[in-house]
């Protein structure tokens, strides 16, 4: 199992590559890497849930749509395919091969970005994603864990309300008939929240009082945001590029440093920390090299093929073998993933998994009634996210 942080680095590298180039060769290689990683992941994951929308379907819709839209609204390029009457607002003018190609390349980049996120969704468990919430957002992390924990409880509560109302003869015929189901769910949930709050308080959970340091950090965040805004305006509006970028970098750094400092003030305990193995370093290194080739000008490396641009006349894109080789680093997760791993949402030992499946069949399936299998799978498995590694409350 690859460390969630290594997956994030891989994702960042994919996004950097897909955003930095419109060379179809490099785009295709990056997308192929994501596809291979996704296929390996799904083949090696037991009981993987279905994807909401496969990247292939996404691409089949987005790619032609992007090409068509760009061709219809951008009328530059030398290879004219046809001409629309100039009287047509926005659409009138020459339809060029260059605009069509550029639109298709944009669609290809979007498809790649989508595929990269599908990989992330499949690779990193929910509890690991919650664990990645920075410490500065401690209340948010606690709220998220409570919300995730309460999803199956709320689902059961919903089912109980439905059954109780059905016994009383309640039938859903119109929108207003949902009210006798929704209101008890809301009131019951709020009562649960009240009990939970009392239990949390009784166990010593309390929101920390704002210290002078936290107030200073907040002021620094406000100052950083102002610097960011004025820097951007200077850059774009007044053409003060150097000053603008300097202000933006300073402002962004102030915000990030304040968040880091606020996070340091929060103690965090983790029940079972995820270990960082050499294979995680290998994934991070390989991904980092792939991204660095596209983002940094290296001496001796001809990067001109990265900046492919079909205008004014379409020409064959360049290709550099070294850049393609570096892109191969994005395949690292496929080569280094464990031969078999459990489903994405939670991971248990095989014995426990069998017990869960049996219980799910007997008890949970009868409770959640006619829900689709994907919904059932998440609903039944959700209790496992009851103990994500979130920060603990500070004692009073």
């Amino acid at each position, binding site marked *: 199992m690859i460390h969630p942080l290594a997956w994030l680095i891989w994702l960042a590298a994919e996004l950097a590559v897909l*955003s*930095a180039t419109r060379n179809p060769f490099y785009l295709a290689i990056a997308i192929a890497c994501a596809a291979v990683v996704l296929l390996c992941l799904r083949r090696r994951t037991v009981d993987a849930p279905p994807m*909401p929308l496969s990247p292939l379907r996404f691409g089949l819709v987005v790619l032609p749509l*992007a090409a068509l839209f*760009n061709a219809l*609204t*951008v009328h530059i390029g030398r290879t004219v395919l046809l001409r629309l009457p100039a009287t047509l607002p926005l659409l009138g003018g020459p339809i060029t091969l260059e605009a069509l190609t550029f639109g298709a390349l*944009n669609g290809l*980049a*979007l498809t790649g970005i*989508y595929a990269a*996120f599908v990989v992330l969704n*499949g690779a990193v468990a*929910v509890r690991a*994603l*919650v664990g990645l919430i920075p410490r500065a*957002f401690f*209340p*948010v992390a*606690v*709220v*998220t864990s*409570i*919300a*995730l*924990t*309460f*999803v199956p409880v709320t689902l059961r509560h919903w089912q109980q309300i439905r059954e109780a109302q059905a016994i009383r003869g309640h039938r859903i015929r119109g929108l207003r008939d949902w009210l006798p189901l929704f*209101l008890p769910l809301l009131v019951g*949930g709020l009562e649960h*929240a*009240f009990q*939970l*709050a009392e239990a*949390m*308080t009784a166990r010593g959970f*309390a*929101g*920390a009082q704002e210290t002078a340091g936290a*107030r200073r950090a*907040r*002021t620094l*965040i*406000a100052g950083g*945001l*102002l610097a*960011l*805004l004025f820097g*951007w305006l200077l*850059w*774009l509006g007044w*053409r003060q590029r150097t000053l603008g970028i300097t202000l933006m970098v300073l402002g962004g750094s102030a915000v990030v440093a304040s*968040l880091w400092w606020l996070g340091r003030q929060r103690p965090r305990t983790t029940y079972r920390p995820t270990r960082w193995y050499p294979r995680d370093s290998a994934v991070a290194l390989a991904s980092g090299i792939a991204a660095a080739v596209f983002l940094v000008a290296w001496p001796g490396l001809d990067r001109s093929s990265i*900046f492919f*641009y079909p*205008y004014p006349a379409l020409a064959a894109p360049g290709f550099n073998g070294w850049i393609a080789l570096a892109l191969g680093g994005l395949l690292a997760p496929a080569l280094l993933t464990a031969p078999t791993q459990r489903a994405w949402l939670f991971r248990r030992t095989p014995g426990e998994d069998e017990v869960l499946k049996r219980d799910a069949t007997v008890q949970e399936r009868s409770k959640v009634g006619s*829900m*689709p299998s*994907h*919904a059932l799978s998440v609903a039944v498995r959700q209790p496992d996210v009851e103990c994500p590694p979130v920060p603990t409350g500070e004692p009073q």
Partner: protein
Amino acid sequence: MMRAAITRWVIYLTSASIGVIAFLYPFFLPMLPKEAVMGSAHAQDAPLLLTVLVGICFAALLVEAQAQAGSAKMIALLGVLVSINALLRFVEVAAPGPGGFSPIFFLIATTGYVMGGRFGFLMGALTLFVSALITGGVGPWLPYQMFTAGWMGMSAPLCRPAVRVLRGEGTWREVVVLALFAGVWGLVYGAIMNLWFWPYAVGPQEQHWQPGMHWTDGVMRYAAFYLATSLAWDAMRLAGNMLLMFAFALPTLRVLRRFQQRFTFTYRPMEQVGI
């Protein structure tokens, strides 16, 4: 107190300004001088820059808003409400409604209206985050979804003056105001959400730049795209939000107000209250 309030407003206004400029940036792109943008070597970096800026703003806004969830009561309340709302989204994913209809906006608007802007912001942002986790919907659109839904919850208290002027608290006039608010946000949400990929659809500056070009040309392109691909979809969201408000708002507001009173008491040591 005064300093804290000023800091809070600076964070709100600045992050909102950066967010608005980031979302509208693609419309101004063709007008900007070439040297002010990126240069051809970095012409494709605009979406990355926007993502970074939106991310920083969102983080700053989240830090400010989460001060609302400082007590165990608020954390528990928010957690449970987010859970209920995320479940509604989950049901919607399992059995999709028509077009862009989603039941989640109802609770975001009503809780933001009753509990306040910061609570509404957290409710909107975290609903989208938690539901993305349980439906496998984490993607490049998620920060934009969280930001936009958060804005919806944050702006819900703006309905209060209108309700006060109409003397409509607890009546159908209040429901009408909230229904209009939720309906408008149904369209605005869709229009903003399209902008996460708009820089990809627009392409780099060189593709459009012409001397004397006006930002309205970019808006025209976007309007054409929106009309062709999104309006019908978002109209379902508008209708759904309004219908849900008319059907459920009055009793829901009563419940939320009752629980708001129960959740806003504070524990104080006995010596402080003189016992």
